[in-house]
């Protein structure tokens, strides 16, 4: 999409955890690869869209709604995003 360098998985994980914790009003340390946003934080759909919008801005990549709703854990979401960054639509 742009010429920006693609963050490696560690960097991507950091960005995702910070974004998620900001929206949920918690600390990045509280968000793990195994965190289930629905089960652990009762996240609602609007908060999920908020996370998506922020990640789109931070990563400069389009994120389909299915990427957000399809991941069961934060780790899976990071994997989906890494994939998306490798092969932007």
């Amino acid at each position: 999409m742009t010429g920006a360098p693609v963050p490696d998985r560690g960097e991507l994980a950091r960005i995702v955890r910070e974004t998620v914790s900001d929206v949920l009003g918690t600390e990045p340390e509280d968000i793990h690869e195994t965190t289930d946003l629905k089960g652990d934080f009762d996240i609602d759909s609007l908060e999920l869209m908020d996370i998506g919008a922020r990640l789109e801005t931070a990563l400069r990549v389009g994120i389909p709604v299915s990427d957000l709703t399809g991941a069961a854990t934060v780790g899976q979401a990071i994997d989906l995003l890494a994939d998306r960054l490798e092969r932007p639509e």
Partner: protein
Amino acid sequence: MTGRRVRVAVTGMGVKCPAGNDPEDVFRRVLHARPTAAVVPGLAEAGLPVRFACTVPEFDLAPYIGRREARQIDRATALLLCAADDAVAGAGGAVRGPGHRAGVHIGTGIGGLPGMEEVVYGHGERPMGMPVHTVPKSMANSPACRLAMRYGLRGSCMTYATACASGTNAIGEAARRIRDGELDVALTGGVDAAVTKVIVSGFARMRALSVRNEAPELASRPFDADRDGFVMGEGAAVLVLERWDLARRRGARIYGEVAGYATTCDGAHAVAPDPQGAMAAECMRLAIADARLTPAGIGHINAHGTSTVLNDLAEAVAVERCFGPQSPPVTAVKGVTGHLIGGSGAVEALVALLCAARGVVPPVATTASTPDVGALDVVLGAPRQVARRPVLSNSFGFGGQNACLVLRPAP
């Protein structure tokens, strides 16, 4: 009218307003008639013709609102939730009953416009960059529905937008729902937080605001000969209303009752009050009759008293129409707090009930002489002791909105 009527008890009070962040602080500040208007840096830096307002003293939001929710709500909703938490805590177990028998009735004159103003400034060039929560944050019913969410209240959840009368209408309508048997409990009140560049400019453009920039503390002077407009304020107040018998049964502390309510409209002008005060006077008469009283039964009047030339004149005429040449003592809280728009009626109902219960009428802050309001017995200089009797609390809004409450102190 005969028969027993359901009585509506006030069992909790919470407030976040320029005069203080709990009911006792607000009562004391109003009693001592100490104004709160001060320069607001954001207004001064914008070079507006009005550089001051009455703002809520800073307090820690953290005990009330977590970071997650704080990001999703605007200032008005935050102030309302804080006031409501205090009211509910003070009321003990008022909201522990069935959720569908408990409702939320809130007034706001300005709603989410301040938040939308911020969005337009921040994202006007690229609207799709706006926060995801913009709509739920700025919708007019955001304060009310967030409050219902917070306590899981599932009865009627209503938002009243009747400009400066919104808070008074909300309390009156909530009381009716209890009286009519629909609700056992209501959290009710009003809020606005619109000390922003665009909204203050809007009122300034109409010349509705005082421009006493050289002495903001002297600007809000309801009924005074030298008044030159209202002072914008912000804040919220919430009352817990409860069916009297249920409140008694659970041994609740009862401050008093919402005894009477009425609302009318001038049906004449978008902003100016009817100079003859016909429907404002009718509103007072109807509210007093609703309380099954006559004007002679009213101990004091908590006037709308905005400090604008036209309102205070029309209100004085209306009071005389209702009460005759001998009015009860009149006070006006806005001399201290400024005009909280949708929050005013609620803050003033709270103050009026405390004053009625304690048999004292605060003097109008700053006001020195009232030559153009005729026979109106405006309390000046020092508090006046009166009998503990019901108080009439008036609110009149743009759009010709009139709303009056009669609040009776507990026996």
